């Protein structure tokens, strides 16, 4: 498709988005749905502006972002590290991997009550929850990526007298990068979800706490503004990761 047609379709798509927002506004103003449930885009926007001006929304967004990034970072370090070790060792794959595969389908949020018992309704509990949930995709994709390097490459590196760490750093991890990025992306989605869940349960501040408390006191514009910001976080974090992936994997033939 030519660039111009591409642009035309993009604009048409934008127009449809604008129409959807217009429809939302019309439904709200015509009172088809009670204003208690559905604030229009205008009131949602007003709530966002108010939150930005008073700094409350900025602070809550910062809290959620910080938890998401910290928990995800922790999971990345642990997951890629352990995944690399498991991927390198055939023995670890036979003895340890089945246990890890068995834990993975457990809903991460189901671990929250256990984490609360040990850590209380605290910041640490939220971070542990996020790290636990985001760990699995990264660990398993890294293990898979490292393990599935062609055997020829391992032989070559042995001939060259490369140490295990050198093989890992120079051959296995760069080769596994496309797999690892798949895990990082999935992990980031999980991290945002669990940050919100953790904040809802613990009421430690952040966007999750904001929207749940707003629901309890029937402040719909505050919920919608929080949900809009959460959507933006999801959109932006995915876009940033895509850019990083495109840059880091620029050596890969398209």
């Amino acid at each position: 498709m030519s660039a111009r047609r591409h642009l035309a379709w993009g604009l048409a798509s934008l127009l449809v988005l604008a129409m959807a927002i217009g429809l939302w506004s019309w439904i709200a103003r015509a009172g088809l749905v009670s204003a208690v449930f559905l604030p229009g885009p205008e009131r949602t926007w007003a709530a966002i502006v108010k939150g930005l001006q008073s700094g409350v929304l900025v602070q809550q967004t910062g809290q959620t972002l910080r938890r998401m990034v910290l928990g995800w970072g922790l999971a990345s370090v642990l997951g890629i590290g352990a995944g690399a070790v498991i991927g390198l060792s055939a023995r670890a794959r036979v003895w340890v991997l089945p246990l890890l595969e068995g834990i993975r389908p457990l809903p991460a949020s189901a671990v929250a009550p256990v984490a609360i018992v040990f850590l209380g309704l605290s910041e640490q509990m939220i971070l542990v929850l996020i790290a636990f949930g985001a760990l699995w995709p990264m660990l398993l994709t890294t293990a898979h990526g490292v393990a599935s390097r062609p055997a020829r490459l391992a032989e070559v590196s042995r001939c060259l007298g490369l140490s295990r760490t050198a093989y890992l750093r120079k051959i296995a991890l760069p080769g596994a990068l496309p797999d690892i990025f798949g895990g990082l992306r999935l992990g980031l989605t999980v991290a945002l979800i669990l940050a919100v869940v953790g904040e809802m349960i613990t009421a430690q501040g952040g966007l999750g706490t904001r929207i749940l408390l707003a629901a309890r006191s029937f402040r719909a514009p505050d919920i919608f503004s929080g949900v809009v910001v959460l959507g933006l976080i999801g959109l932006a974090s995915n876009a940033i990761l895509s850019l990083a992936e495109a840059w880091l994997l620029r050596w890969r033939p398209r």
Partner: protein
Amino acid sequence: MKGAVLPLGLVLAWQGTATVFGLQSDTLSDPLQVLAALAAGLGDASILRATVQTVGAAAAGLMLGAGLGAVTGLVCGLLPVLSRLLRLLIEVLRPVPAVAMIPIALLVFGFGARLEISVVGFACFFPMLILTETAVRGLHPLGRDVARMLRLSLPQRVVKMVLPAILPRLFVALRLCAGIALIVAVTVEISSNPMGLGYRLMLAGQSMRPADMFATLLWIGLLGWGLNLALVRAEHWLFATGARA
């Protein structure tokens, strides 16, 4: 076989430590107590009742969300124009975490099954839409020409050619969404909705009954594992010959 050694060893070590040192705790429990709690929960049917609530809400949400998603995906796959027009709208809505819908659904429906069904439905809608659309797109263009040659109408083409062709991939998508549905249902119960397994788990933790808590956790794990296994088996059985997905 070898894979079972480590988990069994860990469980035995846990039990051994607890027995030797005489564990007495509000936060930990040993495997035998957990099994006893699970047996008690199954015996008085309290776990089964909670399971029915959770699985029922997850299944209803799955049918609603995945059904709508599959239909939308099918239409978008058959009409590329519509797909391109809707792209931005979908790309904007898709990254919204499903759990962020909990407060909105809470406001509209209050506590109960409908809260859970709506959030699960939202969570299942987009994956199903995308996967169905991709499946339709992946069909060989020759099928379209053949349909035109046979003078099939669009509904005939959908029923006779498109649906049978994408069925295996549709089932894979459904399996994926079933996993999401169970996770989201439990999450909704843990974070707000007072019903089902998630609530039972939360309650056990808050009232310092660790054996009950771990038993419920174990049960949820078994449930998810069994669901996945059953669906994988069904998939093999249904599409054993033409499995391309």
